[in-house]
């Protein structure tokens, strides 16, 4: 009965500690490997079928990069939301709303300001207005406990309606030399919108991987109760999170307006599912708690390469939908297989 008679038993060293770490590294690498395989595949296809190069053609690379800009920006915000265990379905039309607002504001500001300042106003207004649906999403999810799927679907409709009302049902053309330069100009052969996007995505990578905000985002996605007990203000975090997601969509909308010298309410309509797909292909789990911005970048490029590559090798465009759909399903299956394998030890 003497309590200190039994020997102290030290917990043994962690024999399998490396296993899941390696698996997670593979998960973020998976999308990049897949992207590499796709590029090699299209190169081989283009050479075999038409005797031309796919990758050696600078125009192709530029087009793919431009093509990837908007879905990647939406997916960047979506990565944060999905890691937290939520989803943001509103981003497509938030992007359209920002595109319309940016076009309108640049148009009005052209009359009173010099072109660069008018553009600055437009960019600022577009991103700011985009933040409003994000704020509503955040309050709905964090304070009113609306499931993210439903809350953001509601804002999807509201943003859509407001964008079309502001645009009076048409596209809003805008003429400003600085805006046109931003949308179509190049620096050393690289389009400005690609440079802006790359810098922004790099910033978001930093936020997710190196800041307390990013760390709390992972913790909330894995175990919200643990995060709350650790003193993290989850509600404030969620509001910021959905504002961030909307701001990403806002930037995408502004760049759309720059590229086409016009704002359109339906600018982001086809992109919402592509953006979720990019996140999933990039190795994030829809159950929350895992995912990286670098993985999402690869995921967005996988989709862009499939879509552009199939056109390049003359496949009917409808095959794009099938190809992207199959890739999404395979990604989710791999994620689940990995969970089953890696999770074996926890479910004792």
């Amino acid at each position: 009965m003497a309590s200190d008679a039994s020997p102290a038993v030290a917990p043994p060293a962690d024999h399998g500690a490396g296993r899941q770490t390696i698996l997670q590294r593979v998960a973020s690498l998976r999308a990049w490997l897949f992207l590499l395989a796709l590029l090699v595949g299209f190169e081989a296809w283009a050479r075999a079928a038409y005797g031309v190069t796919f990758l050696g053609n600078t125009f192709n690379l530029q087009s793919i990069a431009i093509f990837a800009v908007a879905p990647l920006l939406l997916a960047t915000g979506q990565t944060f939301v999905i890691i937290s265990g939520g989803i943001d379905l509103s981003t497509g039309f938030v992007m359209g709303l920002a595109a319309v607002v940016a076009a309108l504001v640049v148009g009005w500001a052209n009359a009173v300001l010099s072109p660069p300042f008018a553009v600055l106003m437009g960019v600022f207004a577009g991103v700011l207005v985009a933040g409003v649906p994000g704020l509503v999403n955040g309050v709905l999810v964090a304070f009113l406990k609306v499931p993210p799927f439903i809350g953001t679907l509601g804002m999807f409709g509201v943003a859509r309606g407001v964008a079309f009302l502001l645009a009076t049902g048409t596209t809003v053309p805008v003429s400003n030399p600085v805006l046109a330069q931003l949308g179509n100009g190049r620096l050393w052969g690289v389009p400005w919108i690609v440079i802006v996007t790359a810098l922004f995505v790099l910033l978001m990578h930093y936020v997710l991987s190196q800041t307390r905000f990013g760390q709390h985002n992972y913790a909330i996605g894995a175990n919200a109760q643990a995060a709350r007990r650790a003193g993290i203000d989850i509600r404030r975090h969620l509001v910021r999170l959905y504002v961030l997601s909307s701001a990403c969509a806002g930037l995408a909308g502004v760049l759309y307006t720059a590229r086409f010298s016009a704002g359109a309410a339906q600018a982001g309509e086809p992109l919402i599912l592509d953006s979720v797909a990019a996140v999933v292909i990039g190795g994030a789990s829809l159950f929350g708690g895992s995912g990286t911005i670098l993985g999402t970048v690869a995921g967005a490029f996988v989709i862009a390469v499939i879509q552009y590559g199939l056109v390049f090798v003359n496949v009917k465009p409808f095959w794009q939908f099938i190809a992207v759909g199959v890739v999404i399903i395979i990604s989710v299956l791999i994620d689940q297989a990995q969970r089953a394998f890696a999770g074996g030890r926890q479910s004792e």
Partner: protein
Amino acid sequence: MSEAPLLEVRGLSKSFGAVQALRDLSLTLRAGEVVALAGDNGAGKTTLIKAVSGVYPPSSGEILLDGRPVRFGSPQEARAQGIETIYQDLALADNLSIGANIFLGREPVRRAFGFLPVLDRRAMAEAARATMARLDFHVSRMDAPVSNFSGGQRQAVAIGRAVHWNARVLIMDEPTAALGVPEQRKVLSLIRQLREQGRGILFISHNLQDIFAVSDRIVVLRRGVEAGARRIGETTHEEVVRLMIGG
């Protein structure tokens, strides 16, 4: 006996509407002591630890820390005073490392390139390694997510978090319930180490074997009142069971 006990509960009562969950309960916990709370379901064990850890205020009665009366508005306030609760369902973020879990919500930040604030992962890993070494828990890979570890090891991480933040009173709700036998022994050895470090441990368990293996005293609750308190060397399984079921 001259100095005040680490934690003292005096005449604590708690009712939820018409239901009196806890009636006039008193308890002391000294530094370097393990006190077990035993009792059937609904005896008031959980109500007691929730009142002590700041989850809800008592209806009446007092809680004293080092002889000074304290009132906690939230678990955070209790934690700031050195009372840490380790929950049965392991409040860890499985996808994060040991260090990140220990520092969750209080992460250290350093300046990269002199200006850019980034998480100080190395400091977290170092502190985690030092803390876990104090618990005789040696890990080769500090960057591995805690989902890699077994149930007992993760319990050690949860305890490590309390130790790192200098908890003086540790409240453990069924710390061995979800574990296999070898893992249970590890957790019990951790509890002994915490006692040797001079902390006070309030320990809820259904397992009399565990209680007798590790506790100094046992307080048995029945229907919200104290049914008996014994020094562990002066009682038996049979007596404790009798106190629990009454009669």
